């Protein structure tokens, strides 16, 4: 509010603006490639097949979360409950598969259902409670994490039973299944956003809530759907993470490139999507996710202290947010 007031005074225009825009639109590609090359030379074991596959898997997991997150942002909803949804879904997966002895498909269905339930809960508080998503999901996240702790008794649940990792985390044509799933998510997302009425409604709601409401867009339903999609992709990620680790995951200490909403938010902003209702490009999100993953992975391999990785991650978000404001100022 405060800032927006001051922003009007400083509109950037002319040639400088075109240069800046070009840099902002394409800079991420260059920076990612440069970073990659630097790590090839300076980070031990970075350029090994094993590590590259690792990066690919981490990036795909973060990418799946980011896909759903993008939909929420487009609808104007900043969803901060990702970590809560991840926690609930990972515990659900581990409990049902390991302790309740559910079959794999049933486990997956219930874990996804837990995600949908979490999304509906968010929608309930945002829409019926008339509370901005950012704050509402901050609150629901606390509840979700508590529920996860409650269900798991605060313990990590190790999965000894065979069949989860072996079925879920496989290679198809030599590429890990999570990468395929990520691409599938983006294709479905792209079709939904660009080819369907729902997609048009999501854009409209995010761009101008009042105008959308007045022109008959069912804004409340759109917001609910967007929040459910965001939670659903988080739940999907949680299943994959749980299967890969063979245990319920802890989402406490988040490191660069790991799956949580800070990464998703950073990636979405770097992708050019705006907190203020702008429009970005989904492929840039993917590159941004890759960038953040490479950054975290490379720094870790260089034995940089966790603290610095976390600081870098924080500044990446700061930088992404500043970029997004600059973009808003220029258009």
């Amino acid at each position, binding site marked *: *509010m*405060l*800032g*927006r*007031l*001051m*922003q009007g005074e400083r509109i950037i225009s002319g040639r400088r603006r075109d240069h800046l825009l070009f840099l902002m639109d394409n800079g991420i590609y260059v920076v990612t490639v440069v970073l990659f090359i630097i790590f090839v030379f300076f980070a031990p074991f970075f350029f090994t097949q094993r590590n590259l596959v690792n990066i690919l898997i981490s990036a795909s997991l973060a990418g799946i979360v980011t896909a759903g997150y993008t939909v929420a942002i487009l609808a104007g909803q*900043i969803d*901060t409950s990702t970590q809560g949804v991840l926690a609930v879904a990972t515990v659900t997966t581990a409990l049902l598969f390991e302790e309740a002895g559910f079959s794999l498909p049933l486990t997956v269905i219930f874990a996804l259902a837990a995600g949908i339930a979490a999304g509906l809960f968010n929608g309930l*508080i945002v829409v019926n*409670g*008339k*509370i901005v998503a*950012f*704050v*509402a999901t*901050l*609150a*629901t996240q*606390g*509840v*979700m*994490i*508590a*529920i996860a*702790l*409650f269900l798991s*008794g*605060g313990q990590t649940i190790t999965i000894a039973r065979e069949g989860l990792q072996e079925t879920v985390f496989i290679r198809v044509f030599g590429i890990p299944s999570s990468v395929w799933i990520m691409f599938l998510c983006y294709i479905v997302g792209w079709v939904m956003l660009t080819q369907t009425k729902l997609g048009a409604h999501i854009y409209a709601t995010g761009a101008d809530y009042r105008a959308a409401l007045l022109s008959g867009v069912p804004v409340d339903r759109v917001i609910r759907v967007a929040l459910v999609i965001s939670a659903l992709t988080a739940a999907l990620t949680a299943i994959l993470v749980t299967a890969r680790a063979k245990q319920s995951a802890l989402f406490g200490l988040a490191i660069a490139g790991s799956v949580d909403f*800070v990464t998703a938010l950073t990636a979405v902003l770097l992708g050019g999507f705006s*907190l203020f209702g702008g429009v970005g490009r989904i492929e840039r999100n993917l590159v941004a996710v890759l960038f953040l993953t490479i950054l975290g992975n490379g720094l870790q391999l260089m034995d940089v*202290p*966790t*603290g*610095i*990785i*976390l*600081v*870098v*991650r*924080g*500044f990446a*978000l*700061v930088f992404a*947010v*500043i970029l997004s*404001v600059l973009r*808003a*100022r220029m258009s």
Partner: protein
Amino acid sequence: MPIQQPESQLATSIRSIQRKQVVQFLLDNGLFIAFVLEVTLFAIAVPEMFLRSRTIEAILRLSGPAGIVLASYTITLISGQIDLSTAQVGGMASLMFAAVFQLLEWPLGVALALTVVLTIAVGLLSSYLIQQGIPSFVSTLAVGVVSGGIGFLIINLAKQPGMIRLVRPPLRDIANFEVAGVPFVIPLMFVAYAIGWVVLNQTKFGAHIYALGGNPAAAALNGINAVRIARIVLVTNAVITGMAGILIAGRQLAAQPGVEGLGQSLTAALFAGVALSGGSGKIERTLIGLLFLSTLTIGLGILNVSAPMRQLINGLAFVFAILLDSIRQQMATR
């Protein structure tokens, strides 16, 4: 459809006005009622454990540092800024202090000064981002991530396992210092509130804070310097949060990233009727909000409620608090 009689229409509208008055009354005074109810319930459930001076002291001790933060947090909120970096800034400050004071064994004054400088820097970063047009909750969220990272970095550099022990006198004695049997953080909290009350209600600066939070555009048109106020408020809040972090670490004899017990400021303030959107609220009421939450924590502890359950209750309290705020907003604009 039968046509409504004028009398019955009148009766309906009177009833709706009455209902509105009841809701308004509950919104204004519900916190007091809830607090009394809470104390009564605990007193009935566990009379011999709850109704004794040790419990009351525990509640006040728990409230002390959190209350010092809440006083400045409330002012921040009224000025229209939501600060989400509290827990991380408190943790970072306590780690910085512990590293310099405990590990390097530098003098107390130097350690404090360095910590203040660091927290000022963090506050300046938040206010700089806000000045760039970034909403405060996003700015402070990012700054919180950075601060958490700095806290971890200090632990890494000091080669400590997840926390830094903090037992060197005189800090230990200061944090646990008592005046006539009362831990000194408690009077300190009341002093913080007294200062906060005077600033908000009796100074020009306070008037500007309310104006800025209530209607930033109007404030700007009347020559109020929004940037300056936001900067002062955020920097002060960061510094006070850091000091409270040190006090908490001193009491627990260890500094950790992310301070527990500072995260409930937002819930307490919203319970007390401070608007999430800024511009309204009475600082003295947030003290009751805090006591309510502290009593809940201690009371549930006495009842042996499990940790996840307690966390769930706290989480639901936050959800309830934001719903209350939303209802208040809707009542105000109707």
